[in-house]
């Protein structure tokens, strides 16, 4: 009954508006006869007046319109009962608001462009009324479907009945577009192009609702079937793959096709207003200000939608590139649902902790940003902290033999030489390749003083034994670092022990040199690099031979070589002998 009253009010408003249009636009000569027509339309039930009027045709038209209006109202009431059975109070209130907004925004501009004739008024009023009904039914269907989706008591049949309203609106709209096309071809005027914008807008909007709620209906139906057929056990893998693929397809379709349909809806609405403005002569009157406000609101909505879509694509792309895809074997071995949405997985992203999730679920989890550091939802391990370990593993793969290790050392030596040749003679480039980085410092002042003594002696033209000792020390530390990078526990321990073993010699060296000045922290690597580079240029070949020999010696120490052989190899370098002796002790302890 409420809907009936609303519909009657709308029609009366339109008729009053048309009558007002007649009174204001008619010329003086036609005032009498057209006034009678308007008066006659308003007072349809006055039989005595009808008899007195000389124009019988207008009476017939008036009665025909009245009859059509009543039929239309009856049709709307029947359709409402079929699809929605009973409206909630909130739905009724929203319906009234939408109805008023739609009539105002879509109907108030028509008098600007429509010629003031009975035929035109009837045509455009019918057009507006039909579209208004379609729009209201579509909005009611979407509201009801959202409510059913949030209700645990929803049955597939209930959902399907309301979903049918969307399909019905779509079909009627398509038929209406076909009818408008017929009118356009009949008259051929450019004004009738305005008939198409709003129906197409409703088509695209309804298609989007059909898409989204179609998947919801499918989910409810599958869920209902699963509950009913507990006895029948279908193959689990097939169910997982099918449902997972459906879920991925649903996400892709809703994301991309939904965006396209949204854009189409917006552009049809924008075209509607722009075309009205064009038909109105591209003027800038007060009435046009309302058109501009509508256009501005639509443009703002379009821009926001495009920005949101672009942001979503960028986020998905970034996440897609950062995490590896799970292979089919991994998915089958995992044999579990996504822990976030509890749906089967046809495609998934694998985290470094070997847990699998949907890409969309991971994106939503990262978008929340509840914690400063992004973690795995299952085990709370940091998401992206494992990347260096992967690189380390790849490095391990490349170093597969001792020959490659030696080749790398040779390459490291050759690079500074080639770099120096391209430089002027008097300039030493800052080469940090040979700098022993990562050596733990114990006691800044004392350690710095000791470390400073070596470069000073080298620069001052000390004996060749001192220079060779410095070069050998650097090479050994570099080898230790390479061994440590391989990831073996023993090499790591040896490297640390080597660093620790350097410091007992420190006091004697410091007292011998007598130098206690501590150089700036930033300049020390530079100075050491220059020294190493200069020494390397003088005796590159000898260094390579020595390094290979020392590598062989260190390698032989690991399987517990006898002492006499160690002493033979390390006799020219007393300092190295102590290091090797320490390695031997460590080897014995491990054995």
């Amino acid at each position, binding site marked *: 009954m409420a809907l009936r009253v609303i519909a009657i009010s709308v029609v009366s408003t339109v008729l009053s508006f048309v009558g007002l249009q007649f009174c204001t636009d008619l010329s003086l000569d036609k005032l009498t006869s057209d006034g009678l027509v308007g008066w006659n339309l308003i007072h349809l039930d006055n039989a005595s007046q009808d008899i007195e009027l000389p124009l019988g045709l207008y009476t017939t038209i008036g009665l025909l319109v009245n009859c059509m209006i009543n039929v239309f109202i009856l049709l709307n009431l029947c359709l409402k009962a079929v699809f929605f059975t009973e409206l909630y109070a909130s739905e009724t209130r929203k319906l009234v608001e939408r109805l008023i907004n739609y009539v105002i925004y879509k109907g108030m501009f028509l008098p600007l462009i429509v010629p003031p004739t009975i035929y035109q008024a009837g045509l455009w009023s019918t057009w507006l009324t039909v579209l208004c009904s379609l729009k209201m039914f579509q909005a009611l269907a979407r509201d009801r479907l959202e409510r059913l989706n949030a209700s*645990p008591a929803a049955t597939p049949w209930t959902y399907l009945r309301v979903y049918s309203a969307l399909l019905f609106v779509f079909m009627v709209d398509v038929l209406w577009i076909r009818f408008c096309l017929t009118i356009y071809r009949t008259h051929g005027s450019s004004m009738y192009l305005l008939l198409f914008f709003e129906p197409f807008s409703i088509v695209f909007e309804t298609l989007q609702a059909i898409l989204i709620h179609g998947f919801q209906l499918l989910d409810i139906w599958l869920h209902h079937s699963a509950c009913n057929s507990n006895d029948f056990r279908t193959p689990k893998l097939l169910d997982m793959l099918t449902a997972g693929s459906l879920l991925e397809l649903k996400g892709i379709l809703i994301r991309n096709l939904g965006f396209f349909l949204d854009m189409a809806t917006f552009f049809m609405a924008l075209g509607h207003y722009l075309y009205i403005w064009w038909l109105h002569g591209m003027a800038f009157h007060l009435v046009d200000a309302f058109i501009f406000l509508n256009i501005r609101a639509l443009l703002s909505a379009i821009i926001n939608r495009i920005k949101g879509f672009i942001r979503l694509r960028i986020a998905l792309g970034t996440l897609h590139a950062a995490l590896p895809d799970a292979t089919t074997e991994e998915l089958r071995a995992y044999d579990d649902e996504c822990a976030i*949405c509890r749906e089967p997985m046809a495609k998934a992203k694998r985290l470094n902790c070997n847990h699998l999730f949907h890409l969309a679920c991971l994106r*939503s989890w990262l978008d929340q940003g509840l914690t400063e550091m992004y973690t795995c*939802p299952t085990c709370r391990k940091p998401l992206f902290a494992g990347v260096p370990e992967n690189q380390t593993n790849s490095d391990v793969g490349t170093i597969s033999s001792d020959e490659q290790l030696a080749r790398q050392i040779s390459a490291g030596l050759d690079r500074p030489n080639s770099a120096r040749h391209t430089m002027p003679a008097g300039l030493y480039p800052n080469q940090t390749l040979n700098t022993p980085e990562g050596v733990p410092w114990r006691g800044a002042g004392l350690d710095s003083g000791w470390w400073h003594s070596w470069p000073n002696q080298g620069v001052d033209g000390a004996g060749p034994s001192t220079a060779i000792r410095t070069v050998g020390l650097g090479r050994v530390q570099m080898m230790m670092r390479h061994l440590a990078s391989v990831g073996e526990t023993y090499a790591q321990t040896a490297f640390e022990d080597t660093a620790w073993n350097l410091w007992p010699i420190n006091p004697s060296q410091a007292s011998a040199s007598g130098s206690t000045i501590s150089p700036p922290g930033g300049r020390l690597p530079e100075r050491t690099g220059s020294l190493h580079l200069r020494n390397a240029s003088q005796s590159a070949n000898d260094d390579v031979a020595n390094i290979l020999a020392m590598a062989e010696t260190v390698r032989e120490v690991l399987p517990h070589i006898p002492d006499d052989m160690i002493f033979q190899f390390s006799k020219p370098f007393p300092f190295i002998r102590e290091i090797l002796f320490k390695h031997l002790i460590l080897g014995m302890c491990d054995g």
Partner: protein
Amino acid sequence: MIDLARVQKELVECSKDAEGSGIKVCPKSDNLVLLIGTIPGPVGTPYEGGIFQIDITLPDGYPFEPPKMKFKTKVWHPNISSQSGAICLDILKDQWSPALTLKTALLSVQALLSAPQPDDPQDAVVAQQYLKDYQTFVNTARYWTESFAKESSRGIEDKVQKLVEMGFPEAQVRSILEAVGGDENLALERLL
């Protein structure tokens, strides 16, 4: 937008295991946003034998945001407010994970009843009593359990009896009473 498919699956899972664990979750009305959780008091604690009801509200960002939970039954516990029922539990705040569910959250609340954390209190008075006068704390907690948690359970039994005597089926009466949070008048309106 709440992931309603996941919430429905969680409710099904909770109802399957309700007999074993005693933990139940059911909708408060005709939507999945407002829920009522029920947990039994852990054995060997002052809360043993009590039935505690917890109000659950799912935010729009669920399961990527934690559910909002608070005790509807009055409880004497250092980490639960004796006035408002607010719960101080890290997984309901910054340590939430989308892999957790309503059931695991309620299990964590039940574990909190077994192992109070007075160093990080929600109720300072209860925490101080727990630290300084443990025996009085135990007696007070047991008294509150007897007064509120068991009375609530006994009250529900009485209401079930009344409504069953009116001629309604017992299973339906119990489910509707749980749904409306023990309000007899609301249950009667819904049964009619």
